[in-house]
């Protein structure tokens, strides 16, 4: 047994398995996310209608066998729209965070490794970015570039970049003082090689935890930007947009905005559970146990 674990000893994944099994609640997050992702992937197969198809005779219907979760003010099937909206929400959430994660981590690692004036400059710019509220940033980007899914992703990525720059910089500063980095320099390795091969794998854990937690936030930001009309333009279904449309007729037909709201909640919940599990994985207090 110990032989096997030694042979396949991959620090991150071995611990991932171990901690996720100890902290079973994070499995709920994994299962929930899998369900949501399969809904999004299988949208064309499982949805009974076309997401923009209007049934003028069936406005504001409650849940029934014909419309599983009811319909909105144009008689569009809510379940269909939620399933298709999952595609947009999950894509925007993950793509924007991955984009921000890559750019932010590179900047933070570079700043931390080089130090000095470059460090100061990069991190002060990051502080400026961080000081701009997300909605304002969204407003700005959409005003400049126009509303579209891509611009929504850019807007969210921009607000996420400085968080990852900070998260990447801090451990880099401490790792670069270790003797093995000095040994690398003594052997004439380039800075790029040292950063990619020797620093990055050691800070990746922190970055991934932050990433999973921020996907949850990004889904929420997407919803709120769509809610105030800065997101993906209608009639494309997005959760935030659906909440907004339903919100206007909240008293007549609460389902139209509550059901997509529940899905936003579930997604955020799933990513937070996963993030908490991941954080336990890299928590030094749980190491070696």
């Amino acid at each position, binding site marked *: 047994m110990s032989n096997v674990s030694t042979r396949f000893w991959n620090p991150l994944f071995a611990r991932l398995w171990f901690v996720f099994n100890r902290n079973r609640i994070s499995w709920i997050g994994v299962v929930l996310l899998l369900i949501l992702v399969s809904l999004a992937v299988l949208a064309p197969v499982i949805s009974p209608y076309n997401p923009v198809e209007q049934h003028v005779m069936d406005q504001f219907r409650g849940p029934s066998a014909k419309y599983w979760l009811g319909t909105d003010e144009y008689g569009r099937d809510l379940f269909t729209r939620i399933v298709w909206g999952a595609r947009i929400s999950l894509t925007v959430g993950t793509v924007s965070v991955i984009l921000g994660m890559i750019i932010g981590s590179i900047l933070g690692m570079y700043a931390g490794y080089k130090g000095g004036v470059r460090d100061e400059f990069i991190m002060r710019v990051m502080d400026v970015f961080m000081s701009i509220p997300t909605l304002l940033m969204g407003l700005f980007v959409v005003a400049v570039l126009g509303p579209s899914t891509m611009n929504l992703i850019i807007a969210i990525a921009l607000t996420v970049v400085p968080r990852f720059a900070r998260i990447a910089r801090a451990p880099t500063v401490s790792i670069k003082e270790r003797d*093995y980095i000095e*040994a690398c320099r003594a052997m*004439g*390795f380039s800075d790029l090689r040292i950063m990619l091969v020797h620093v990055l794998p050691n800070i990746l854990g922190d970055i991934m935890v932050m990433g999973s937690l921020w996907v949850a936030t990004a889904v929420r930001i997407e919803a709120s930007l769509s809610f105030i009309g800065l997101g993906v333009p209608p009639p494309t279904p997005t959760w935030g947009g659906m909440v907004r449309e339903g919100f206007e007729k909240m008293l007549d037909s609460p389902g139209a905005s509550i059901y997509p709201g529940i899905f936003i909640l579930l997604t955020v919940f799933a990513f937070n559970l996963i993030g908490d599990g991941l954080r336990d994985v890299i928590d030094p207090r749980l190491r070696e146990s």
Partner: protein
Amino acid sequence: MSSDILLRVEGLRKFFTVKRGFPNPVKLTVKAVDDVSFEVRRRESFGLVGESGCGKSTVGRSVLRLVEPDAGQILLHGQDILPLDRSHMQDLRQKMQIIFQDPYSSLNPRRKIGQTLAEPLRVHRMGTGGEIRAIIDRILDDVGLSPETLDKFPHEFSGGQRQRIAIARALIFRPELIIADEPVSALDVSIQSQILLLFEKLQAEYDLSYIFVAHDLAVVRYFCHRVAIMYLGRIVEQGDRNRLFEEPRHPYTRALLAASPIPDPRARRRMAQLEGEVASAINTPEGCYFHPRCPECREICRREYPPWHWIAADQGVACHLYV
């Protein structure tokens, strides 16, 4: 004579500036290394001894240009390496390597030993996969590790074994000079002697010279051919091991020797007569840096830093007592 000299360090200086205080920070200068000169001969172990913070590690790191000195010359085979650009320095890196004190932080915890040892050879394009494997196998054998080592991670080894791995990595280019920065002080005493014996064996097999940075006088006395004693960034005395330990001249050297324990319970010896604290390298005293603690302090010691003076061909001292 000169062909016998591998490395010559001339007037090496490294000051660090630190800012202290808020809201009006004051720039302070730490004189980590100040006007240090010495030479290392072929197949020689040269000891650098001193209290912590005296700049001995900075000297070692400057020789490899891991820190850039402010002034001075570092001549390897008579060639000054400080003005060299990156690509020339790259070639020289194969001639000088370093071993660190803490074997727990000198190996990347996420890389297998095989990766750690192969990487420098790959980066310097020193052979095909098979050739690299042959070089590594040979060196593993020389440092007393089995080939299974290669598939393991650092956390699977003890401190002594890790230090052997670090030695193997330092040897991978077959360097001429190894800077050993307190290589045994983090190890158990029983392991220390094993590692020291390994250093000696490798010195013969690989024609190595060592700069051996240490604070343990017993280890230095056993291992080094010549020794330099440092105090607050300067060499106060250097010379042949036997002369230095039998006839220490500088009051600081004497105090150090008197303070180190002797393995004889009946031996009666005056314990250290040193008083006061080590002065800080930020606020070095006027005159001789050692004078506030020196039992033989004279008037001139308070005013002037003593010039370097060779008492004999193989022993020199910076002290007014011998001018």
